[in-house]
């Protein structure tokens, strides 16, 4: 089975508004992704879409707990963090279109955007390149005596990089406030994770660096929430870093251009059974936290938000060539 479902009794007590927020971000991430994939296939986007369908709960469950003074370094497949940090659907969508109203006036893609004031650090097209950077950000946080947390996310493939190991090691030695979130979606581009890793759980690597590691069901947003809460608490309390592995399954290809010659459509379909949205909907209904009508209302608002973002992006201008050489140096 591509994803092992880890049974977990969630003893979490969240307020109704928290559940509404979580549901909204899950749905917003899913819908935006579907729209982006469609628009990309129609040739309307400049940005190559890296779908995060199947993994939404990893970002939502962990990111929803970040404070404004916390930092996040999202991977290429972790769109939800941007929304949770206060970046608008409009700016994200305009970025995918390459418009001047997108991040950095079009100098950067939406999935790598940075916004220092909101605590979002630009991603890098070098997979895993944010991991050593996150350690530096955490060093700055610790040196300043703040209790902010630095959350860096990456896929299972990135954990094969040498400096992933350097980063865990140094973060543990210096007890830096980093939460390393690994979305293990079973695939490193076109290669199965099992062909790239001799260890059955990436979280085991944490023990090699003297830091806690945990694996949870990455399609269960509350499981991710609970494990993240502990990791964030540890970091804030000065107890050092954690490696949190969230098991999921990558629904789409590596990117929207990926012909997916490496897996059968049956297997891809199997993977779609692990749906964080469906799982959470079931939970909310069974626990009578939200009704079907409540969820429909949230979904309608999100649909309008995404439609507005599309219209905004289509109407926005492309950047002018005059800005191409600005802000290279201070």
């Amino acid at each position, binding site marked *: 089975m591509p994803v092992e479902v880890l049974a977990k009794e969630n003893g979490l007590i969240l307020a109704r508004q928290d559940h509404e927020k979580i549901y909204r971000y899950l749905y917003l991430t899913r819908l935006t992704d579907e729209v982006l994939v469609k628009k990309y296939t129609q040739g309307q986007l400049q940005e190559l879409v890296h779908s995060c369908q199947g993994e939404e709960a990893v970002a939502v469950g962990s990111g929803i707990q970040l404070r404004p003074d916390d930092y996040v370094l999202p991977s290429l497949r972790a769109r939800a963090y941007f929304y949770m940090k206060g970046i608008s659907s409009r700016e994200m969508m305009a970025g995918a279109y390459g418009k001047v109203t997108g991040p950095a006036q079009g100098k950067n893609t939406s999935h790598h955007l940075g916004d220092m004031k909101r605590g979002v650090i630009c991603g890098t097209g070098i997979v895993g390149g944010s991991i050593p950077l996150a350690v530096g950000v955490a060093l700055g946080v610790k040196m300043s005596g703040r209790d902010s947390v630095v959350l860096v996310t990456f896929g299972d493939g990135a954990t094969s990089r040498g400096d992933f190991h350097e*980063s865990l090691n140094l973060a543990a030695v210096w007890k830096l406030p980093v939460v390393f979130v690994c979305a293990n979606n079973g695939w490193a581009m076109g290669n199965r994770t099992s062909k790239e890793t001799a260890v059955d759980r990436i979280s085991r690597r944490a023990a090699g660096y003297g830091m806690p590691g945990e694996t949870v069901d990455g399609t269960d947003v509350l499981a991710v929430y609970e494990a993240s809460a502990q990791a964030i608490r540890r970091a804030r309390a000065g107890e050092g870093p954690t490696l949190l592995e969230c098991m999921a399954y990558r629904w789409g290809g590596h990117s929207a251009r990926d012909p997916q010659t490496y897996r059968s459509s049956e297997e891809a379909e199997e993977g779609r059974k692990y749906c964080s949205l469906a799982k959470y909907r079931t939970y909310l209904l069974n626990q009578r936290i939200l009704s079907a009508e409540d969820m429909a209302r949230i979904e309608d608002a999100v649909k309008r938000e995404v439609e507005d973002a599309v219209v905004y992006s289509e109407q926005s201008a492309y950047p002018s060539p005059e800005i191409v050489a600005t802000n290279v140096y*201070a």
Partner: protein
Amino acid sequence: MTVLSVREALRQALREELQRDPKVFLIGEDIASYGGCYRVTEGLLAEFGEERVRDTPLSESVIVGCGVGAAMMGYKPVVEVMFADFVTIGMDQLVNNAAKMRYMHDGDIELSLVLRMPQGGGSTLGPHHSQCVEAWLLNVPGLQIVTHSNPHDAKGLLKSAIRDPNPIVFLEHKLLYNSKGEVPDGDYTVPIGKAQVVRPGKHVSIISYSYMVTTSLAAAELLAAENVEAEVVDVRTLRPLDVGTLAESVKKTGRAVVVHEAPVIGGAGGEIVSALHREVFDYLDAPIERVGALETPVPFSQVLEQAYLPDKERIIAAVKSTLNL
């Protein structure tokens, strides 16, 4: 004025900047307890403590990453990579993050970072502890690259680099650490982006940087005995290059030889020659010559290493060829 070695001048710069600005800190392998492989940071741990003078594991990638990340948090890290050859391990963080973060954030960040590295051969340290790496980094917009050839510039330029809001690669040379010269007392800086004429002359401009300025000056002395007056210009900052000062010299002399220790092909000399070319075309009495090391890895055994490195004789030969002598 006090006579100091380059090592002492660099140490003073670090010490004064650590005192002056609480955001400055040092990070690198063996810079704290060991005092630095070339002893530049000796004594600083005792004075400033391990929060501000930090030893790291053997991890150039995360070391440079720490520099970039902490700089984005408003700190002024001075990262030491023990030998410039090891920058290869930190290249992703340096080239893909440090050089590009400001652009990708469209200016909305701080990134005041200095990366100090000893480079160069002449100490029989072999192929992996002797390279000059400036050309590897020169083609990266977003970085600045600074060198020095004497204690005065070492201290003044390091202070400027630390205060500068941009990421700066600060290249030191192993053979210069003991080299002595006069250094003003008190605080002073030397501007980044300015070359300097270190020996006036009228027959040819020898344009060089780092340790090769020393070799160029020695060549100029020998040439003077043959009535060839060479002007020696110290480039100092490679990026941004002070084409104006270089051009002014070549327009005066009509001849130029560009000297660096790195091998010629793909070396920074090619950039200097090309940048000059348009400015001085009508003033040249001969093509501009380049002198650099041989196109080989740096050999270990002294005889081989000395054959590899540019020396006074090769510079003199190049000068003479511009004079058709």
